[in-house]
């Protein structure tokens, strides 16, 4: 019973953390906009916690660059299981317009496993909400530890 309750709660309370991995700010502000009155993702119990140790879902925007990849990995490792990763925007997916640059590693999935890809440049708040909803479906099934 308790397990079921936890599982149900998990889908109802995904705490997100946003990490900008070298984006142009476009996706960042759209991610932030999701929190604001017009989109208000707190409806789904989503809080932006800003601390990997509290987060369930990691939203990554932007191209991963060489200096950033260690940080991304570090943050991902500090998140307790179960956890999900959403890559947002063309840059987070593949490097986007910057994929030929010398300091760009590429998409987020080159460093950490990604659960949901949200395309867009920048991804619209609606798309990000869709992405989080999709991630929740995966997230609910994950087990701790």
């Amino acid at each position: 019973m308790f397990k079921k309750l936890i599982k149900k709660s998990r889908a109802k309370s995904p705490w997100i953390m946003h990490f900008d991995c070298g984006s142009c700010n476009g996706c960042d502000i759209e991610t932030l906009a999701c929190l604001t009155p017009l989109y208000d993702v707190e409806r789904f119990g989503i809080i932006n916690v800003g601390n990997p140790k509290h987060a369930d879902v990691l939203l990554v925007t932007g191209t991963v660059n060489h200096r950033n990849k260690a940080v991304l990995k570090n943050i991902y490792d500090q998140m307790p299981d179960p956890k999900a990763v959403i890559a947002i925007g063309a840059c987070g997916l593949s490097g986007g317009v910057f994929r030929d640059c010398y300091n760009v590693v590429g998409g987020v999935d080159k460093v950490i496993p990604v659960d949901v890809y949200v395309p867009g440049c920048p991804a619209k708040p609606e798309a990000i909400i869709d992405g989080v909803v999709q991630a929740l479906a995966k997230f609910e099934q994950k087990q701790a530890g």
Partner: protein
Amino acid sequence: MLTFTPNILKNLAAKPATRKYPFVKREQFSGVRGELYNDIDNCIFCGMCSRKCPTQCITVDKTAGTWVCDPFTCVFCGICADSCPAKCLHFHAEHRPPSVERETISMQGEPPKPKVKKKAKAAPAKEEAGKKAKAEPEEAPKED
């Protein structure tokens, strides 16, 4: 102190401004660049889109008649649609849905033959592959 009180009390009395997105979908503005698609029937495989694209996410193979776009790299700038001589590239207003796996849009069309009488053959090819966007799951590339 407390100068913000009128604002929050007004908000408290009024209805929340929240758009109830996935449950209630707002009508999109016209001309919004949500998702790129190719009207493959009209495509002449000139490759203009591929050359103009700033992210170089479109690959056109004139001989095989394929038009492949990496939606994960596309930046929705609309240059391709503007420069398309056949006007077969369009944008849906609805944004492209998120996916859980890497995918590419690949479309198989009829390559332009110098000869005529292609109309009859085009139909079946379209049936099988022309479904606007065929998602092709692809193993996420893993690095070391």
